[in-house]
């Protein structure tokens, strides 16, 4: 029983951690009132997804996907998720930049960046 649990744990713990991080980020993204907090949650959410991808590419005992000199026998990790995540990181920072500039604009227009206060402002106008 305990042995099988250990096996299960070692086979999966990275995915579990990635999922927990995703959920933390998602919660912040949905529930937090402050708009900057939402974007912080978005960053955590995206990074956790990237961790999930990198975990998919990991090979136990593997080495980084850069060719070793001729004649050295090596097991390389799967390089494809790395490439996908490089692209996705760029997308993430782009979305963050656009979101932050929207927040700056919202602050200029309304003076607040809190959802509840924004609703009050909207009702007042």
């Amino acid at each position, binding site marked *: 029983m305990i042995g099988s649990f250990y096996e299960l744990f070692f086979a999966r713990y990275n995915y579990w951690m990635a999922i927990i991080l995703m959920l933390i980020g998602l919660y912040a993204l949905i529930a937090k009132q402050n708009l900057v907090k939402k974007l912080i949650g978005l960053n955590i959410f995206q990074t956790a997804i990237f961790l999930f991808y990198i975990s998919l590419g990991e090979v136990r005992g593997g080495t980084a996907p850069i060719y070793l000199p001729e004649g050295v026998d090596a097991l390389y990790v799967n390089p494809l998720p790395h490439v996908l995540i*490089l692209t996705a990181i760029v997308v993430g920072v782009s979305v963050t930049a656009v979101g932050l*500039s929207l927040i*700056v604009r919202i602050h200029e227009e309304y003076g607040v960046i809190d959802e509840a206060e924004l609703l009050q402002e909207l009702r007042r106008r």
Partner: protein
Amino acid sequence: MRRNVIIKTVSRFLVPFIQVYALYVIVHGALGAGGGFQGGVVFAASFILMIIAFGLTCVRERFNYKWIVMLSALGITIYATIGLLCLIPGGNYLEYGSIEALLGIPHLHGYLIDAVEIGIGITVMATMTSIIYDMGDTGGESS
């Protein structure tokens, strides 16, 4: 903001090193860790350091919006044009091997990848700097 002479001197000393390192990262991308994107970001970081040390207006005078726009367009143009050049020998879009076969230069494939990485680096550097300029510009004098 009070300008500290130590910060100014140290960053004047550091910026060239950061930029050389960025260029190294871009060109070294084919051999080890690194590549156009990382190098471009590191290059943009040198501008951030300059903005912190010397203020936004000072940096913006040297490296103005016109440069940024032209450079960010130039980077993508390099990439997309190399892709289009591959059509001339009869290859598909981005098929570098076709140019290598046409000109008969060995390892041209790798050089083209370097050229593409430089294109990526230029665009990323220019765009990141542009974003930092726009985010840091408070409209007033204090930066």
